[in-house]
């Protein structure tokens, strides 16, 4: 890897590791100090490596410099050192000798501990996702602003507020205990699920960025299932869902960047390896008797990996959506259930049910009804597609809907 690529690459992979270790060492009150020390380390790397060439082992170099910078900082700020050494119940005699443990094991433990802090429900979902991208994924403010389609100032403020909230709530950065895992793992899974969806369903045109968000969410979820205490059926089900969804990533957009609908996708572009991984994690998830919404969603995603329409396929998908709605209502699940009903029981029955679900402010509701009325009552279909067109903000959706209207007008 060339030097110009190496630093951003190392920033992405190493920044978060060192930050997590230092955050865990310093405690929640001093996240910014940890971030500053690691940023300084990378700044020095980009200056020095440019002048003197790459060190033999760049990662080891970063770790050593980060350690030294931290020790220097602690020496210069003995008061701070005393405070944090009290917090970490430091036992040796001189506080200057604090050991900064950048072993693989401690890096992993620290990242998991940070995951539970970042995903703490005291912050709103959006703030949690921002923090996750920043502290767990090593995304800069600019990249996060890009992902959320907003400006740097807004993201900066959001992150500041979220960190402040963690401080005022005095959230401890520690390895969660068994009872804390039970209590807080669902919130962690929710954040990872939302982080993934942010990438998968974002209206953002930047495909590389969206893929990165999905990959990061998968990486973090994978960290959970790799840990013996966090390897729960729900975590496996979530990872399975992510694998199945990601398997279609390359077929969802054409070379012009336009959305390709499921039924028009080229199955050769579906990633078989990810489908197999999804099946593996779904099997892992079936151990025990928990049935989370991730199990049901992974089940639905599994059936979508076989493209051919069979009675069994849509019967199963309908059944899974029924279950999903019993666990948790969402408009999107209600709409998808109705689509599955049309496939399993015919359009007439689905129209009857669709008209009961009353989501007339939702563009997807009208798109669905437009779809269902097609070839049954084309005038009604066109009316619904026009409603959908007026309600959607996404340019990609507008294009798809307009094309459907045009097609119907030709008939």
């Amino acid at each position, binding site marked *: 890897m060339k030097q110009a690529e190496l630093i951003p690459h190392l920033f992405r992979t190493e920044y978060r590791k060192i930050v997590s270790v230092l955050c865990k060492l310093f405690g929640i009150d001093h996240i910014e100090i940890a971030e500053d020390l690691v940023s300084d380390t990378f700044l020095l790397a980009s200056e020095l490596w440019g002048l003197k060439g790459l060190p033999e082992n760049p990662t080891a170099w970063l770790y050593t410099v980060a350690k030294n910078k931290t020790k220097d900082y602690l020496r210069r700020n003995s008061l701070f050192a005393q405070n944090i050494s009290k917090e970490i119940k430091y036992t040796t005699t001189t506080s200057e000798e604090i050991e900064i443990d950048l072993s693989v094991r401690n890096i992993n433990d620290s990242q998991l501990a940070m995951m539970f802090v970042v995903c703490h429900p005291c912050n709103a979902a959006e703030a949690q996702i921002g923090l996750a991208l920043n502290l767990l994924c090593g995304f800069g403010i600019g990249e996060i602003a890009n992902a959320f389609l907003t400006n740097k100032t807004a993201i900066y403020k959001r992150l500041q507020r979220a960190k402040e909230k963690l401080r005022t709530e005095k959230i401890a950065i520690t390895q969660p205990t068994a009872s804390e895992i039970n209590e807080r793992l669902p919130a962690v899974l929710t954040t990872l699920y939302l982080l993934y969806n942010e990438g998968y369903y974002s209206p953002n045109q930047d495909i590389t960025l969206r893929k990165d968000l999905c990959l990061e969410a998968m990486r973090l979820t994978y960290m959970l299932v790799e840990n013996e205490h966090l390897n729960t059926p729900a975590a496996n089900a979530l990872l399975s869902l992510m694998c199945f969804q990601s398997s279609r990533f390359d077929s969802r957009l054409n070379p012009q960047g336009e959305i390709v609908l499921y039924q028009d996708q080229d199955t050769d572009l579906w990633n078989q390896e990810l489908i197999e991984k999804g099946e593996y994690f779904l099997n892992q998830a079936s151990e025990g008797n928990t049935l989370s919404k991730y199990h049901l969603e992974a089940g639905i995603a599994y059936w979508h990996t076989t493209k051919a329409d069979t009675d069994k396929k849509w019967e199963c998908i*309908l*059944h899974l959506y029924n279950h999903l*709605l*019993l666990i948790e*209502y969402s408009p999107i*699940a*209600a709409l998808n259930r109705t689509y599955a009903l049309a496939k399993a029981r015919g359009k007439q029955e689905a129209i009857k049910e669709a008209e*009961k*679900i009353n989501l007339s402010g939702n563009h997807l509701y009208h798109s669905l009804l437009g779809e269902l009325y097609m070839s049954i009552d084309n005038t009604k279909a066109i009316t619904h597609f026009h409603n959908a067109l007026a309600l959607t903000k996404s340019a990609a959706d507008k294009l798809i809907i307009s094309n459907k209207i045009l097609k119907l007008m030709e008939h």
Partner: protein
Amino acid sequence: MKDFLLIFRTDIAAMPKRSPEEMQANTKRWMDWIGGIAAQNKLTDRGNRLNLTGKVLNPNNVITDGPYTEIKESIVGYSIVKANTEEEATELAKECPILGAGGNVEIREISVM
């Protein structure tokens, strides 16, 4: 919106013996019906089935056994739905599979204590 208890009753003695396939088809009908209510965001509690046997405790510690063959209709299950009016709740109950199997649904508004 108010909560309404749906009570499913049927004549247990007259219930047909079902094959596994018929039982599966029956479960499917119930899931489709309850899923349809959930899709309208009008399900409070999917409820449960009740075992067909039980006991009745009367005053003076007189206990009798079920099934209650002397009563024509026994309660076999319940669900709780959300609706604005009794009429609306009744509308939700209209496609309940118990009606197709000779049973009935009682719709009662839950008056919160």
